[in-house]
């Protein structure tokens, strides 16, 4: 056997077993590795975000979309529903910044988020949207409570009513942005599994927020036909998104969404929020449909973050996303 043949043999052995043993074999750096790229090292960096971020995605989008339901409920004289909805928004407005600050590498410098206003940075836009949402939603909750409890009478109450309307409208407009910008945040990155689905992500995150909001209100006992209709709309949209994710595959580039642990989580949660929730709702099993949707919406955010981490570490995914 020539030296060359022996070397090839060693390479094959190293590739198959990951280790080479035998007399006269000096392993360190010996056989040429055949991993993708440079020793299989990541080409881009995986996201550093931890569990706070997927929970924030769920809380922020649910609270944001709750403001839309609050506005619509107030407009169509479901005052009690509006009060609970805007309470959801208020709770989200309090929890969201805490989660985001916890995730920062240097939490004490969180105010630096408001040093600049950068339209080209989805993170900067998100920070401003969240701040403005907090500024609108919490006073909207207080104003609606004052109005609903009839604390003031006469002309002062009419003023409060107008102020409540304005604050609810502001909360709803900022709420829809709060629920959807997170999709842009993930979509405008170098992470292959994310940017290949930059159109799906904002639709998914927004719809998941709207559906979770309606689902949680239903679970609290608000059985309004309008919430059921919203539930149908959200579950229907999620079903279409689940199908488009199956059809619109990007090969190695987005394989983290289809294979492995992250693939299982993403696909399963899509079924929970999409077809399963739609089916349960179709049979009139509203509480089950609501639980299925909200669970899917929450866990889906973890699935997408996990897929981003796996995809970011995968050099073949990066190379595949840059072909064509």
């Amino acid at each position, binding site marked *: 056997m020539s030296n060359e043949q022996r070397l090839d043999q060693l390479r094959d052995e190293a590739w198959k077993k990951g280790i080479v043993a035998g007399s006269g074999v000096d392993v360190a750096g010996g056989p040429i590795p055949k991993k993708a790229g440079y020793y299989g090292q990541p080409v881009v960096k995986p996201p550093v975000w931890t569990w706070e971020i997927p929970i924030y995605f769920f809380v922020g989008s649910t609270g944001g979309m709750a403001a839309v339901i609050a506005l619509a409920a107030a407009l169509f004289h479901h005052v009690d529903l509006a009060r609970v909805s805007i309470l959801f928004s208020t709770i989200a407005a309090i929890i969201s910044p805490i989660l985001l600050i916890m995730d920062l590498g240097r939490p004490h410098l969180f105010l630096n988020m408001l040093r600049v206003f950068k339209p080209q940075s989805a993170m900067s836009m998100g920070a401003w949207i969240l701040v403005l949402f907090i500024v609108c939603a919490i006073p909207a909750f207080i104003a609606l409570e004052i109005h609903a409890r009839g604390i003031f009478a006469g002309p002062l109450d009419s003023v409060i009513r107008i102020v409540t309307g304005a604050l609810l409208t502001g909360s709803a407009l900022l709420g829809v942005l709060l629920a959807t910008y997170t999709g842009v945040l993930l979509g405008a990155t*170098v992470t292959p599994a994310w940017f290949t689905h*930059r159109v799906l992500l*904002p639709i998914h995150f927004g719809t998941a927020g709207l559906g979770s909001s309606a689902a949680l209100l239903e679970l609290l006992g608000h059985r309004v036909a309008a919430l059921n209709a919203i539930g149908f709309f959200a579950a229907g949209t999620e079903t279409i998104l689940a199908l488009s994710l199956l059809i619109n595959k990007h090969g190695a580039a987005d394989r983290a969404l289809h294979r492995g642990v992250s693939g299982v989580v993403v696909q399963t949660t899509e079924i929970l929020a999409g077809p399963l929730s739609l089916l349960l709702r179709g049979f009139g099993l509203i509480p089950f449909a609501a639980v299925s949707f909200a669970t899917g919406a929450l866990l889906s955010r973890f699935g997408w973050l996990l897929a981003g981490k796996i995809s970011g570490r995968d050099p073949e995914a990066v190379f595949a996303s840059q072909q064509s």
Partner: protein
Amino acid sequence: MIGEGIQSTNQRKHSYIQDHVEVGFFTDPTVCIGCKACEVACKEWNEVPDDGFSWSGNSYDNTGHLGASTWRHVMFVEQDRQKGNQIVGSISNGEDPFRWIFLSDVCKHCEEAGCLEACPTGSIVRTEVGSVFVQDDVCNGCGYCVVSCPFGVIDRRPSPLPDHGAAFKCTFCYDRQKSGLVPACAKVCPTESIVFGRLDDLRARAKERVQHLQESGYRDAQLYDPEETSVRGIHAFFLLLGEPEAYGLPPKPQIPTIYLKSAWTAAFATAIASIAATLIAFAFFA
């Protein structure tokens, strides 16, 4: 450039910052000897903490990749290919088809920098010499630059390392440059594999070097400077033997801001549809 000794731009004092002249690095693996002096000089000058000693088993590379505590990284690429016209030893058919390439990787200081665009605090700025600089005291560690760098350079430094929590990368030795000094890695490079100088000057020299190598039998020598993509060129460019993938470099790096338009369109459409659906639900199903 090679053979210029103390006349080289690596050894001269300069006033690029005062004169607002764009500068760059040209890194040439064909003269690199893999001594890692650049890695060491960078760590020493910038007081970058050590981030563990472990054996990777990947040739002589125990550093792995660029990161928050690795601003220069010498790669050891082993390939089943000849290096130019070299004939080494005589094994079976007279040729050793093995080549060993060393390349010192560094932040590319992109013309359109993903990290800079993504930074929500304004911590990352463009300097007078066209380099991309992270202001350590402003960064709050949000981590968005990490997923916005098409080259996987910048990272958030983990606890318990010193100054953990913020994002770090090559500063292009901005502090040294302010005093007219050359970046530590270029200053120390014994073979001038790393050349520091005016950007326009370096680009011309790099093209000349590629041509010279190609004429000398290194047929796969090429310049890695993705000017055709949305990154629109890099200020620290490399001569490569073979394809960029083998060096863990993206073949077509893109700045992620190009995805904003489609993503925001989808977001606004979803926002409008959600409001409309909710209003319709309450108007017709109540």
